[in-house]
């Protein structure tokens, strides 16, 4: 079979799809014929489909640029990488061996150090290595394994042999991305996947779960496991959230955990709950600010002491990054013989540690052919390609190596193999690196039948990283054995119940949900008010008058949606109102504007990414793009249409988020937030809409009914008679109207009763007391007296009640925050003496 889509391999490199005779290799044929039958057009269409899925699933990674962090969509090249089943079996065994070997090296170096005493490893390498954490010496690893998960980066040289380019042992990333890649590819190329007889990844999550659960100390039936992430700005936050979600564990940040009496607890809405195992994505030395480098503020103070006590496990074990050192590769063949009594099955790319005499001389003499890397993990993966350096820089590099040789390793620059990627004009070759994963199982390691492929951005560069503009790939192991058809992974992609583990709802997450509810309601209120104001412009509007326009403007100012500009070159009311509306819809996102409020909603939602469904995300993106398009064509009818749409979408946002959750504490706090905000908004509207000096009260009533979405309810009850006391009754006192303050208070009281007891059980909580008082105040109201106008044309009693209710609701919010939502303040370091 000939190459599909006019694919031409790159001379001088091993091509993964096309053999030396110019025909497609047997294990690629099923894929190649599918690609040929698609043609470019269909391939491009499916690529768009994959991009849409990636965007909808919120699949991103972070790039650090200068001091800032950028979030980028996950780059996936749709064409999978295919590896032959038999070749894979050999790699599989070799990777399992290597995981075992590195695990044994860790056990030795954090234990008796025979390897140093018997001179298999140079003492300098260990002692100068910043990743050798002496605090971890003698710590018991969970489940008897230092490495619960291990990853290796593999490359293929022109002669077709595989080599290990790097070992990842600290907190190997990529497993979640690999699984998500398969989910996307499975959705976009289901026919091709089936025809290619690819080994499934369906068991991967279940295996990982079992591996973790058997690692937890104490052999508890249902160990409480948490996934610890540095937070939403972490490079691979998507993956942390993905794993937590699909493994069914709580995603926590360091401040969600606390250590008491050498035991780790998670701070939840229901109090402190003990934790058995922490799956970390932090560097080891960022896990405990008390034990490790004193500048670190992340992690959990006291974690190491708890591990030492054996009350909690951490995977990978703290300190595992020690063998994530390219310098170690030079010693692996000897280590393998000594520790496992076996030959190393898969060679490493030729590596020289400059700390060894002889190696240093070789490196300095061959800089042009080598890639220079730091010998110890530095957090960043720096590489210098000797050949590309101008002479002056090369001399400086040589001088640096000569001065501190132990800090550098040099590796042979392998002419990487190429594999096809989709480009706008068809298929093109790109350099390829494959990350594979091994997971501790029983007394060995099990290798995931697949992996995370990465390709270079072009064939000009051997830099195969996503940071350099490369893409990722799904890895297909061909030659599926008779496996039952299961699509566990696909099923797992359904929106996840936010409160599956009600008791494990961290206070931090509860707090974010509460504010998500408040912000969502707040944007909706702003959009409704604006929508009620816009018709005043209309030439045909019966309500249009200079007074009405001026009144509407001051209403927006009073509600703090737009700044007060009276006096500053007073514009005619019509122009002033028009510019106020424009400001509220403007992209510049001035304080109070809709864009500004959407930003708050978005950033809160972003903190909850692991808890929100793809639909919720789509809604927020949709709102933002609507706002952008309105900014461009600002016709009155266009504005009105946009606002209609916005109100509709926001209503559905509340529904989507809420309907996607079971009625646990997470949902409850979201709803509490919405109800508190809705009540506050109605109080504000009444306060500024009714209690000023009377002028065209009918216009104001209409505006208020429109702004609170109560026009229909009002008409159905009172037909066209517009009276203040009827409006107040409907919006404040009527507990059957879902938009009234009384209705919100009623629901809030029900929620508060369901929350876990506060620290003083038995006594009525301050939340409950506040609500009972507020409800009583409403029930005792004499409507006519309340709405009575005094000699100055004001309504003092109404003002007093509105103010009082507002104070109660703010008090309720404070009490809830104090009793349920407060999570730990960040830790501080004491100055040394």
């Amino acid at each position, binding site marked *: 079979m000939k190459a599909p889509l006019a694919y031409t391999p790159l001379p001088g490199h091993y091509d993964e799809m096309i053999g030396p005779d110019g025909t497609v290799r047997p294990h690629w044929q099923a894929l190649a014929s599918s690609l040929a039958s698609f043609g470019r057009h269909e391939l491009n269409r499916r690529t768009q489909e994959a991009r849409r899925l990636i965007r909808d699933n919120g699949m991103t990674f972070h790039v650090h640029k200068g001091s800032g962090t950028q979030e980028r969509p996950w780059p996936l090249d749709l064409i999978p990488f295919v590896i032959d089943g038999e070749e894979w079996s050999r790699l599989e065994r070799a990777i399992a061996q290597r995981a075992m070997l590195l695990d044994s090296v860790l056990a030795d170096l954090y234990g008796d150090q025979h390897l140093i005493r018997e001179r298999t490893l140079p003492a300098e390498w260990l002692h100068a290595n910043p990743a050798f954490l002496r605090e971890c010496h003698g710590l018991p690893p969970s489940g008897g394994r230092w490495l619960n998960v291990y990853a290796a980066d593999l490359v293929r040289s022109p002669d077709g042999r595989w080599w290990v380019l790097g070992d990842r042992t600290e907190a190997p990333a990529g497993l979640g991305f690999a699984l998500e890649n398969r989910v996307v590819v499975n959705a976009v190329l289901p026919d091709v996947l089936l025809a290619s007889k690819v080994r499934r990844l369906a068991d991967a999550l279940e295996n990982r779960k079992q591996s973790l659960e058997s690692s937890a100390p104490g052999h508890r039936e249902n160990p409480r496991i948490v996934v610890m992430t540095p937070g939403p700005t972490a490079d691979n936050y998507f993956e942390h959230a993905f794993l937590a979600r699909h493994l069914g564990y709580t995603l926590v940040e360091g401040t969600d955990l606390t250590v008491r009496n050498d035991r780790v607890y998670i701070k939840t809405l229901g109090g402190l709950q003990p934790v058995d195992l922490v799956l970390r994505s932090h560097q080891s030395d960022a896990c405990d600010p*008390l034990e490790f480098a004193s500048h670190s503020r992340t992690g959990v103070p006291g974690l190491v002491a708890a591990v030492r006590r054996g009350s909690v496990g951490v995977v990978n074990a703290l300190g595992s990054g020690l063998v994530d050192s390219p310098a170690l590769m030079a010693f692996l063949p000897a280590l393998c013989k000594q520790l496992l009594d076996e030959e190393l099955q898969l060679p490493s790319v030729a590596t020289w540690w400059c700390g060894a005499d002889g190696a240093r001389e070789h490196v300095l003499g061959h800089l042009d052919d080598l890639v220079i890397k730091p010998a110890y993990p530095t957090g960043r993966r720096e590489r210098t390609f000797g050949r590309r350096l101008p002479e002056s820089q090369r001399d400086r590099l040589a001088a640096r190596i000569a001065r501190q040789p132990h800090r550098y390793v040099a590796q042979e620059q392998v002419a990487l193999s190429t594999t096809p990627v989709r480009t706008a004009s068809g298929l093109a070759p790109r350099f390829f690196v494959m990350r594979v994963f091994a997971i501790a199982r029983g007394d060995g390691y099990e290798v995931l039948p697949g992996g995370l492929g990465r390709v270079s951005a072009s064939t000009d560069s051997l830099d195969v990283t996503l940071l350099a503009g490369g893409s990722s790939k799904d890895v297909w192991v061909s030659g599926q054995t008779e496996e039952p058809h299961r699509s566990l992974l696909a099923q797992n992609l359904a929106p996840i119940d936010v409160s599956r583990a009600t008791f494990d709802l961290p206070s931090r997450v509860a707090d974010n949900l509460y504010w998500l509810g408040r912000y969502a309601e707040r944007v909706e209120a702003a959009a409704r008010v604006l929508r009620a104001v816009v018709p005043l412009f209309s030439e045909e509007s019966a309500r249009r008058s200079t007074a009405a326009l001026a009144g509407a403007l001051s209403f927006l100012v009073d509600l703090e949606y737009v700044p007060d500009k009276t006096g500053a070159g007073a514009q005619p009311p019509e122009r002033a109102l028009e510019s106020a509306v424009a400001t509220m819809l403007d992209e510049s996102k001035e304080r109070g504007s809709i864009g500004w409020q959407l930003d708050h909603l978005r950033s809160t939602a972003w903190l909850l990414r692991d808890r929100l469904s793809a639909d919720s995300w789509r809604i927020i993106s949709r709102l933002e793009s609507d706002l952008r398009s309105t900014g461009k064509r600002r016709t009155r009818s266009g504005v009105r249409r946009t606002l209609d749409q916005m109100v509709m979408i926001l209503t559905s946002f509340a529904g989507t988020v809420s309907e996607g959750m079971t009625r646990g504490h997470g949902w409850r706090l979201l709803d509490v937030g919405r109800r508190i905000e809705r009540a506050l908004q109605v109080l504000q509207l009444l306060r500024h809409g009714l209690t000023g000096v009377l002028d065209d009260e009918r216009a104001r009533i209409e505006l208020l009914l429109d702004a609170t979405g109560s026009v229909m309810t009002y008409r159905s009850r009172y037909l066209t008679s517009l009276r203040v006391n009827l409006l107040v009754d409907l919006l404040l006192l009527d507990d059957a109207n879902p938009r009234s303050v009384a209705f919100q208070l009623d629901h809030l009281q029900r929620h508060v009763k369901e929350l876990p007891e506060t620290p003083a059980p038995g006594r009525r909580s301050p939340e409950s007391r506040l609500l009972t008082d507020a409800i009583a105040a409403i029930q005792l109201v004499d409507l006519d007296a309340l709405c009575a106008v005094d000699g100055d044309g004001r309504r003092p009693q109404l003002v007093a009640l509105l103010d009082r209710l507002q104070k109660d609701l703010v008090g309720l919010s404070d009490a809830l925050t104090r009793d349920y939502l407060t999570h730990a303040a960040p830790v501080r370091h004491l100055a040394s003496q």
Partner: protein
Amino acid sequence: MTQTQTQSQSSETGSEYRVAHTTQYAYAEPVSLSMHQVRLSPRASASQHVRNTRLQIDPPASASSSRSDYYGNLATTFSVADAHRQLRVTAESLVTKVDENGGRLLSPRLSDALDQLRRRETPEDLAAVEYQVESPLAPRGVAFARFADVALVPDRSVMEGTEALMTLIYREFEYDPVATTVSTPVATVLEGRRGVCQDFAHLMIACLRSHGVPARYVSGYLVPRPGIVGAQASHAWVSAYCPGVGWVDFDPTNNVMPSHGHITLAWGRDFEDVSPFKGVTVGGGNHTVSVNVHITPTA
């Protein structure tokens, strides 16, 4: 092989001291939870007997545990879970200094010693590699090597050369408690020619390591005597390793070879490993710390 004799500073033998080290933190706002790790128990050794070590914590610790750390120092970790605005920790011990040897040290030539270290034939030589390579606060570098060149001459004995380095630092550097902070890098100390005991210890260690001589950081106390700098507080000095001789202490702040007048608390690669008192708090706001060390003869 040139041999040299060094007179160790000697004073009365067998005297016992009561060591009381009080650390007090005062916080501007309440601390809801604090966790600390202290290394305040003097190490027992052939030249130093230790008994009755006690740690008093006020308010009382909610949890506390002690262990021997990687270097063999006693590390105590405790937490205070009741809200507090001040914390007072007093470590008390009875320490007896005893004569270890005659104080006359014969040592090989520096160049021979370095050759021997390179071969690492004994377990002691191999273990010393940990202190020969750089550590975060005491790196190796050309500037340190150059500064020490005049003292660490290949043909001199290790002890003679190291003592000369100690004297060099003592003469060229001014004791100045305000010139540096705990985070001043040792390279800055070398340029500024000022600092306190911790700086001089790190500098001397960096110089020794830059020449290939293993060196470690020792924390402890000085028995108060007229003309000695650094009593009433924690002190720090240096221990250097010579193949065949072992570890020998040098105090560059006072230009003496520690003996009965120095009480050893802990040792490690640099200050970070032996920090007597570290902690994290939740809450607390600004804080002030005061430290008081009292050393009195018991007899």
